[in-house]
């Protein structure tokens, strides 16, 4: 597929952030994680797009929005291969992979029903114990959670 056609799969962006290579099954989770339902910016979402690397993929373009690093890195919890394209004046000025932070606060629900965090009005806190496999551990009940079992608040 030519560059031109590829670009046409999702409407072009003048300024903003394009989040590329999202696994199709995780696309709406990623949108939720970034709180996109609360933003007034123009958002274009494409899913099940053709991808040489992944077969199919999802993409989210948000106009005039540049995320803080710790916000965007949360995506790595569920979609570690995501690439962030920072676009200014129709040009990709920066391509950046996402990287898991060491600690994740207030974002993930502990999947242990007997965990204090599920029974008390408080923030959850997880330590990332394996960045490659995306394994996290609850700082309270010490339960380990694999990437595929992570539930976002």
């Amino acid at each position, binding site marked *: 597929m030519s560059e031109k056609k590829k670009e046409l799969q999702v409407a072009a962006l003048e300024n903003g952030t394009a989040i590329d290579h999202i696994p199709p099954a995780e696309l709406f989770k990623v949108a939720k994680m970034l709180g996109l339902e609360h933003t007034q910016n123009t958002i274009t979402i494409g899913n099940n797009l053709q991808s040489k690397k992944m077969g199919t993929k999802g993409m989210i373009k948000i106009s005039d929005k540049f995320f803080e690093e710790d916000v965007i890195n949360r995506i790595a919890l569920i979609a570690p291969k995501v690439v962030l394209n920072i676009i200014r004046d129709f040009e990709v000025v920066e391509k950046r992979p996402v990287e898991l932070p060491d600690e994740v606060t207030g974002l993930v629900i502990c999947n242990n029903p007997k965990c*204090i965090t599920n029974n008390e009005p408080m923030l959850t806190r997880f330590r990332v114990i394996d960045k490659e496999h995306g394994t996290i551990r*609850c700082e309270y009940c010490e339960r380990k959670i694999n990437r595929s079992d992570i539930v976002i608040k």
Partner: protein
Amino acid sequence: MKSKSLVSIDQCSKEDILRILENAAKFEANPNRKLLEGKVAATLFFEPSTRTRLSFETAINRLDGRVIGFTDASTTSSSKGETLKDTILMVSNYADLIIMRHHLEGAARYASEVTNIPVINAGDGANQHPSQTLLDLYSIQKTQGTLDNLTITLVGDLKYGRTVHSLIVGMSHFNPTFNFVAPNELKMPDEQKHFCDKHGIRYHEYTEFDESIIDETDILYMTRVQRERFTDMEEYERVKNVYILKNDMLKNSKDNLKILHPLPRVNEIAYDVDDNPKAYYFQQARNGVFTREAIICDVLNIPVN
């Protein structure tokens, strides 16, 4: 600044463990000391545990401290919907130290984050019970004269038994060799085996509990095999009598062997073992008071001479 708390055995360095055990020995030599004079300790047992509470309250009394608290959350405000945070902050106004047991996992860690007084975890669900681990370590050190290079055989429920998981962590500083003896359904989880691999700890797994394993053992740590842990009742029926220690199994055991059990036992140690001098589980419980005196002084930064 946050005060010093004891929430989990993982937080204890080798130096921490050795310091607490050294002080526990001083308390065994002389248990009654006025080190907590004028201090109030709160024992908050959101989940009842008579054994653990009596041990802690004995420790406080022997140190001349005063005790406030409750033993049943249904009689307190937490049953009226008060959050744990509110209960902890309220008690923090009255006491110098909180000792708590809670059915929810992570409760003690959270409590230690919201208060400025020390918190000692006396059990949070299936998670941690560090004073039990320290008293186990004290019992091992006392009976063997050392914690180093011992062969420790863990028998029974190694899957859900938090005391054995914590014992592995506590012993990891002292170059142990472990034998894990358990039925397939209750064998040691991968997480603990990975921990051993990572720390260079040797271990062997067995499903049969036979004398050849006992004969090479320094510490035989028995746990309960509970019916409710099994999904396969046929498996339970098959193994329920396999992991029972009987006196005649000890005839060729090492002279220094001691048998430990976190108590209460049901039938996993036959009563004829009780009179064997190698049975140590009742003295083990007695050591709990000295260890807890040492833990209380440790979190309050009270020197023990």
